[in-house]
């Protein structure tokens, strides 16, 4: 028989109301990268939380290296050499990287005094060994998402993990960071570590994984060898129907500019200049994708346009009327819609019903309220319509936003924003963390909006999204637009280089050589 390092057999996990896992089997071979694939809410995180001891299954058994085990809490998991990097990072923001890594198994000398020096040394060694570069003494709140993730991985290694679970690690990474992560994963497996990788990105699976287990709506569907399968079959397995990836779209016919930005300068909360004299315009009927590595001023740019952040200099015009430093409400009223990056922080009031979330910017207007009095009748009528049109999967418009899956939360936000028929639609990371099904719908929506003659500004760290959806790609680097390219005339490599700051020419011929 095979030597499996992890075996989860007939696992069943219920939550009040739903069965998140129903008789799921998962068998991970020693030293392999095993993918776990499924739609939003399919039950992947739950299954892994069971393996990591955060949840206790109602049924089923777990074997580690053949041994039947009971994983009652993360400590047990750690002792069994199982480590997990969670979908929502488990890092304490005001702590340093080192403090986060050692937390719970701190090296101490007399009087419980934490020997931070020793810890930082050990961490340095680990990160050199696996090529996970981190700054141990930096505070987590000050470092990039990529480094945060490397810190998370180090956390597991520091505890001597031999099996590492990565829950949607790439959802939050830039292309460069994804490449790094992939090579890291390879290093790890070389060192005999096994990896369970949860991702919605089929290409990644094809690239790094050995085998993949697909689950759908809490049921285990199948486990297949990656070399015996392909993207389309996987997608079909996962969603239960054929999915088409190449988002169909007719060429754009841009009209006159809607958004015009001249020499814009914006500082971040730490008073560092993040947008440095940026120029950009977006025309009616086109989708402009901003490609760039996280932290090159994208967030500040969006916040400046939407009035969430004050701009230091320069001008932002909408339909040739200036909207520089207007209040968010004024900006919204003048025809801008915004799908925010962080849907939980900005996009939704998680404790409000879906319906009330859907009128978040319009509640004070007729028909939703008349002279300051809310008309729940029309609010709910409206909500039901949008839920219908945008196929938001929710028990009822009265359900709290919190209880929806990220995918459906996102659909609700898009419904809200698009429905205001804005002149400019800003979509920041609109498909982050979503499954292919959801992604497909959302991309289709963006294109529909374009075809209705709206200007769409798409910010994404995912190159194929940018390339698939945009009509024009503006590359952002160090607070400026350093290049504009047409998707059909470029490739990921060139974009990658541009995003890394090399000039257009260089990038061209470099990319050219490699072709």
């Amino acid at each position, binding site marked *: 028989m095979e030597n499996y390092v992890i075996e989860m057999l007939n696992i069943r996990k219920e939550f009040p109301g739903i069965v998140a896992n129903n008789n799921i089997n998962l068998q991970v071979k020693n030293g392999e990268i095993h993918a776990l694939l499924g739609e939003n809410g399919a039950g992947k995180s739950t299954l892994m*939380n069971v393996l*990591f001891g*955060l*949840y206790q299954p109602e049924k089923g058994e777990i074997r580690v290296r053949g041994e039947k085990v009971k994983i009652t*809490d*993360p*400590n047990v998991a*750690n002792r069994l050499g199982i480590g*997990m990097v*969670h979908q*929502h990072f*488990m*890092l*304490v*923001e*005001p*702590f340093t990287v080192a*403090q*986060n890594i050692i*937390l*719970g*198994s*701190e090296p*101490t000398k007399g*009087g*419980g*005094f*934490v020997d931070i020096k020793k810890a930082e040394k050990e961490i340095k060694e680990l990160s050199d060994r696996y090529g996970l570069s981190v700054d141990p003494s930096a505070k987590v709140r000050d470092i990039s998402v990529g480094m945060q993730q490397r810190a998370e991985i180090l*956390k597991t290694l520091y505890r001597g993990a031999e099996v590492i679970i990565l829950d949607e690690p790439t959802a939050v990474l830039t292309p460069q960071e994804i490449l790094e992560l992939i090579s890291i994963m390879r290093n790890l497996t070389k060192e005999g570590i096994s990896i369970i990788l949860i991702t919605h990105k089929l290409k990644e699976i094809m690239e790094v994984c050995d085998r993949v287990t697909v689950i759908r709506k809490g049921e285990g569907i199948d486990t297949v060898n990656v070399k015996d399968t392909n993207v389309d079959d996987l997608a079909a397995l996962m969603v239960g129907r054929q999915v088409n990836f190449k988002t169909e779209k007719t060429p754009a016919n841009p009209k006159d500019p809607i958004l015009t930005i001249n020499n814009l300068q914006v500082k971040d909360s730490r008073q560092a200049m993040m947008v440095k004299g940026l120029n950009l315009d977006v025309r009616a009927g086109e989708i402009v994708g901003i490609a760039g590595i996280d932290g090159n001023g994208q967030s500040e740019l969006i916040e400046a346009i939407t009035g969430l952040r004050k701009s230091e200099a320069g001008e932002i015009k909408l339909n040739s009327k200036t909207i520089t430093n207007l209040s968010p409400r004024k900006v919204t009223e003048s025809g801008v819609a915004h799908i925010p990056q962080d849907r939980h922080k900005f996009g939704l009031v998680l404790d409000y019903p879906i319906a009330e979330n859907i009128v978040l910017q319009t509640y004070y207007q007729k028909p939703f309220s008349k002279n300051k009095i809310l008309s729940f009748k029309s609010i709910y009528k409206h909500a039901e319509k949008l839920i219908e049109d945008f196929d938001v999967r929710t028990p009822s418009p009265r359900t709290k936003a919190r209880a929806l899956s990220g995918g459906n939360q996102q659909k609700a936000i898009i419904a809200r924003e698009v429905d205001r028929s804005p002149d400019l639609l800003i979509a920041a990371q609109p498909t982050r963390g979503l499954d292919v099904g959801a992604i497909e719908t959302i991309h289709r929506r963006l294109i529909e909006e374009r075809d209705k003659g709206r200007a769409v500004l798409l910010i994404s760290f995912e190159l194929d999204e940018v390339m698939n959806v945009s009509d024009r790609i503006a590359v952002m680097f160090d607070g400026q637009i350093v290049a504009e390219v047409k998707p059909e005339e470029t490739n990921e490599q060139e974009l990658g280089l541009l995003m890394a700051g090399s000039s257009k020419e260089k990038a061209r011929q470099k990319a050219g050589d490699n072709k």
Partner: protein
Amino acid sequence: MQFIDQFIAMMPMVLFYSAPLIFTALGGVFSERSGVVNIGLEGLMVIGAFSGIVFNIFTADIFGAFTPWLSLLVGAVAAGIFSLMHAVAAVSFRANQVVSGVAINMLAVGLGVFLTREIFGRGQTDSITQPFYTRSVPILSDIPVIGDMFFSGAYYTTYIAIIVAVLGWYVLYKTAFGLRLRAVGEHPMAADTNGINVTRMRYIAVILSGVLAGLGGATYALTISLSFAGSTISGQGFMALAAVIFGKWHPLGALGAAFFFGFAQSLSVVGANFEFLANVPGFYLTIAPYVLTVLALAGLIGRADAPKANGDPYIKGSR
């Protein structure tokens, strides 16, 4: 120079006034750093004061000069046990922590006075015969100026309070225990996934806050009121809570805040001695401490961020 003299004269007041606040505020810091809001400090002080006094009265003949020290201990233990209620409600039963804090406050006063009536047959106890006394520290008190200001005519409890504050800082910021405790208050789920027992940490923190608030209450009773009644602890717990926030949830910050309050309070008393204040209505001096605090907050202190998870019960597997 009158100012200097007055200033020197003030210090002993500042020292005895602040001590109970320091202890109690430290309790608040520990509790809230672990993510458990504790507005029950007032009630915990009541329990500390009550049990300290009662113990003192009944054992003075037995323990003589040791009585106040033992009373202090008893007050701390009693309040520590009492704080278990808050822990059970807030940690195990996911209570709204403000509510259970309010309950603690009401229960403490009710119980304290009820028992006083049962034991003494009236609303307040006798005066204790074995209180703490101010002492001047050998040698140190001989240092010019400094000696007079800090080392003559202060209670040992005050020095203990200061030491405990420094200790608190060390524990919270230098030890593994402290790292875990703060982690639990900032991001309990992260702590949990690192194998830290959130519930246990929070229980410890809350009980610690009880012990410290008990020390605070007992200190007040054994150094200032020397007897217990329903009105003995009237607002000190809330002042301590203010000190916690004023001090930005940092042990040394709380220490500073407590001294600030003591200082402002004494200033309002000593103010009467200054000619130039002689014809200012006493009322202005009376409110001065509170106005000063508000101004200080608005001016220098400004924004303070509570521990992220402060007030949220931790429920495994929810986000």
